[in-house]
């Protein structure tokens, strides 16, 4: 691969960081633990979600090593069941759901809309503390007996039969839900009321639209899982009977209530990542996104339709066939807006000026992996096929393609894209490209064989399996070792770059968003003067301040008039 083209005058990395910025404005541990600056809170979240990512990753490593042999001797059955449960709980509730919104969303949304902070900065800090308390309960559960119910907590296994530390875990997830709710509330109000003059809805970056849609799910979905876990916890503690058939309750009711949140939750995990991709592609193709209105609208559509498909997790519980037909049809409908996004992103590349920089590699990797993940969702939504592949490794492969191949790549790609803004420094480009490619290859090797395992019939959550499934399991574990390398590399060089990376300057790429008009890193109050927006999103042509060569490039009318 050749090196990045020579730096552009307006984006020449300066020799020094700005004299005053949000990182050095105040010192001391109290200034961090009691901060109300959205940017510092974002970094607090960065540290905590990374911590939980390590924990979840450690469990995943043990799982894959254990599954190298059919009668894995690494751990006992009981321990294995705890490993996959805790892997799920840590990753879903404490990494995937908060990651992009609480790290990148918190950092960027005020900057992107021209505000000084979120609407409720103290509530923002409270969100982080609630997250920590919830995490504390869950860690307590992990270390005093562990959790072996599956992250789905199905009753009556979780409320009656399990002998693991269910109650503290359920309390921890319950508490953590309020962190999500408050973040969502903050984002919605901020986006409504705090946009700078001229920043109309249809000039908003698509990252903001994505987080608006995500926040709708945060506030409407999370309360339901909160109450569900509360009832399940009470059932366990006081021997009540909401979901226990021996006491007149209904275990299927638990599933309905659980999935009413947990399905929209998966859209919480992917919509922000899609928002990141919608920022990276126009920036690294140096042209407006193709179909702005459709991408914005599809985010809202996914959030709304996503609330009506939950029972596709329950096709085989004995629910009525009419219900199953309805939920299958709706599940196909929810796939369409995602397809629209993929086509629009691809079209944005057409006649672009495409940089091969790391964020673009992550974005394109996302498209490839999300494609597989999303398309395999069509198999699962298909009632006749689901009878065969439900609760097999096919499902495991499907959701890892979306959550890891999609959400995590979006997160890591976003971190790279905005790293200069967050830290003021650039990461080492060559090493970063290698890591991106390693991640992509390792990921596919890990999870593609699992589709085959699933169709062959290997059930999920199995600590031991029939010998005929071994070959694909070994392939998967081999891939996982490469995947792990792909994650470790960025952790190392990103930390290295914070001290030794090249100083980035205001707008190294350059990109068109308002956040790139501020210093890198920005002042605590973001802007010295409240910006007034007169340009459309992703307009590279009418932006002389970017210092690009626009002679001869046709200049067009405002974006949304064409859509």
């Amino acid at each position: 691969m050749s090196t990045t083209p020579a730096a552009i005058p307006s984006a020449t990395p300066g020799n020094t960081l700005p004299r005053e910025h949000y990182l050095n404005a105040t010192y001391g541990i109290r200034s961090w633990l009691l901060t109300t600056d959205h940017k510092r809170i974002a970094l607090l979240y960065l540290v905590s979600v990374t911590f939980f990512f390590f924990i979840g990753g450690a469990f995943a490593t043990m799982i894959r090593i254990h599954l190298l042999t059919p009668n894995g001797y690494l751990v006992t059955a009981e321990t294995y069941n705890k490993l996959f449960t805790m892997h799920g709980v840590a990753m879903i509730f404490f990494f995937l759901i908060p990651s992009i919104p609480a790290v990148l969303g918190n950092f960027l949304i005020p900057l992107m809309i021209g505000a000084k902070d979120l609407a409720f900065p103290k509530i923002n800090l409270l969100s982080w503390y609630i997250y920590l308390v919830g995490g504390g309960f869950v860690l307590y559960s992990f270390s005093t007996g562990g959790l072996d119910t599956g992250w789905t907590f199905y009753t009556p296994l979780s409320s009656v039969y399990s002998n693991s530390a269910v109650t503290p875990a359920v309390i921890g997830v319950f508490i953590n839900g309020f962190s999500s709710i408050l973040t969502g509330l903050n984002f919605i109000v901020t986006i409504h009321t705090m946009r700078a003059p001229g920043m109309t809805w249809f000039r908003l970056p698509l990252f903001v639209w994505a987080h608006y849609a995500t926040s709708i799910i945060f506030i409407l979905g999370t309360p339901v899982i909160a109450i569900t876990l509360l009832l399940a916890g009470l059932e366990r503690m006081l021997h009540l009977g909401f979901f226990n058939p021996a006491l007149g309750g209904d275990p299927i009711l638990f599933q309905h209530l659980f999935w009413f949140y947990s399905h929209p939750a998966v859209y919480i995990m992917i919509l922000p990542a899609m928002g990141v991709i919608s920022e990276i592609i126009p920036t690294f193709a140096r042209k407006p996104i193709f179909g702005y209105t459709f991408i914005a609208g599809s985010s809202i559509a996914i959030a709304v339709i996503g609330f009506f498909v939950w029972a596709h997790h329950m096709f085989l519980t004995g629910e009525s066939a009419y219900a199953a037909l309805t939920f299958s049809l709706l599940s196909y409908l929810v796939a369409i807006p995602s397809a629209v996004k993929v086509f629009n992103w691809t079209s944005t590349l057409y006649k672009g000026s495409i940089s091969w920089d790391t964020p673009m590699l992550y974005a394109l990797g996302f498209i490839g992996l999300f494609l597989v993940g999303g398309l395999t969702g069509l198999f699962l939504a298909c009632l006749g096929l689901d009878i065969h592949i439900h609760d097999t490794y096919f499902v495991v492969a499907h959701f890892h393609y979306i959550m890891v191949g999609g959400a995590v790549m979006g997160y890591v790609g976003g971190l790279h894209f905005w790293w200069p803004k967050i830290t003021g420094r650039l990461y080492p480009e060559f090493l970063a490209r290698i890591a991106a490619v390693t991640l992509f290859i390792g990921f596919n090797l890990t999870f593609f064989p699992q589709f085959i395992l699933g169709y062959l019939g290997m059930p999920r959550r199995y600590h031991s399996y029939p010998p005929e499934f071994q070959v694909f399991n070994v392939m998967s574990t081999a891939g996982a070792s490469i995947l792990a390398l792909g994650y470790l590399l960025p952790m190392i060089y990103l930390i290295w770059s914070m001290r030794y990376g090249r100083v980035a300057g205001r707008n190294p790429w350059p990109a068109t968003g308002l956040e790139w008009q501020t210093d890198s890193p920005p002042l605590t109050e973001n802007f010295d003067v409240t910006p007034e927006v007169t340009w459309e999103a992703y307009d590279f042509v009418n932006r002389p301040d970017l210092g690009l060569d626009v002679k001869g490039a046709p200049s067009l009318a405002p974006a949304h008039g064409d859509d």
Partner: protein
Amino acid sequence: MHRTGELFGQFETMDQQRESASLGMWVFLSTEVLFFGGMFMTYTLNRSTYPDVFGEASRSINLPLGAVNTIVLIASSLTMAMSVWASQVGKKQLLTIFLILTLILGSVFLGIKGIEYHEKFVEHHVPGLNFSFEPGASVATNAHAQLFFSLYFAMTGLHALHMIVGAGLLIWLIKQSLKGRFTPEYSTPVDLIGLYWHFVDIVWIFLFPLLYLIDRH
């Protein structure tokens, strides 16, 4: 710490601050709708599965006390609305009086709730504490009645918790009002806490018929 009525740093104008606060409260209330909604759903489904036992159990809770509480709560919403009006027309003394009345009525509600809970405790109708619906009840009846009471305590308990928080907010409001902080130009906390209080009242308006009024021939 900011004094009530000042422009907070993240906002450009008082209008923006007011708008944000108001939208924030509405969004928060919508999350509460979903929160209570999950339990309402559970209750409704169970009620239609076990109509007889639920009917019997419902008849065993204190309807007169429940009815009084309903009137008390509606009256407290009236006094709350009056306090919002008083703040808007600048009648500071009346504002304080109405807030205090609201707090009193809210406390009466909680007190009566306490009496009801005590009654249930004495009758062994508290799940998890030697629950026994009635002497000679079959295993199934006991189980289904316990389901009713689990939901009864969960729903009214959660509601009462919200009332207690509301009472705490009212105490703060009264203190601020006594300092004369609220004017026709600035009465946001009164408006917002008023919204919250009305919402908690509305939840009770649904709870009361669902729990107390079914199968009362």
